[in-house]
């Protein structure tokens, strides 16, 4: 359980910082960089979530299909 709470905080932190970066880059008129930063932040979080969901699927498999 401890690890999952950690991950949630990490996602929140990345979200806050990326939001700030987006705002600042937007203000000085570098819209395209702002969008790239947001996109990369999103992809990073997506990968993190995907690995967690994969853990969940492994657990489900091990429960219902009696594997390792």
């Amino acid at each position, binding site marked *: 359980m401890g690890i999952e709470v950690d991950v949630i905080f990490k996602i929140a932190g990345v979200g806050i*910082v990326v939001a*700030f*970066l987006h705002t600042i880059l937007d*203000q000085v*008129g570098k819209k395209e960089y702002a969008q790239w930063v947001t996109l990369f932040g999103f992809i990073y979080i997506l990968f993190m979530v995907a690995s967690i969901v994969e853990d969940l699927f492994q657990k489900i498999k091990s429960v219902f299909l009696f594997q390792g």
Partner: protein
Amino acid sequence: MLKLIGAIFILMATTWAGFEAGRNLSRRTRQLRQLKVALQSLESEIMYGHTPLREAALKLAKQHSKPLSLLFESFAEKLSDGGTTVKIAWDDSLEEIWKLLSLKQGEFEILSQFGETLGQHNRYHQQQKILLTMSHLEREEQDAAERQGKYEKMFKSLGFLSGLLLIILLI
């Protein structure tokens, strides 16, 4: 504990890099302003003081602060050594000092063009050339001031925030 120390180091490094990038912008504006003042006093030395170029350059070197004074100092030195034309002496000293200045390629071209005309014409032509160079520098200074107002703050906060992001990604 070790993680915390590393995080602080990363944050300090990126913040410092951001501040340095921001300071570079303000340095450019300041140096352009100083350069303009230097050309103005060079003009008055030539027009009203009738000072020889070497002595005028020495005076300018005394009047100004560090990075710019070195340019005039080495220029005067090369002139007193002799054996070169004014243009070559100016170009050489410009290239020597260039690494210390935070100016851009456009300013380098303007200054090296200015050196080509230096000491070749009579006083009135020389004054015209100095005025022309000054108006070029004026335009560059406006551009530099605009960039400074726009990007200085951005670099500062960008440095800090990217450090923060890096820490979160690495934890």
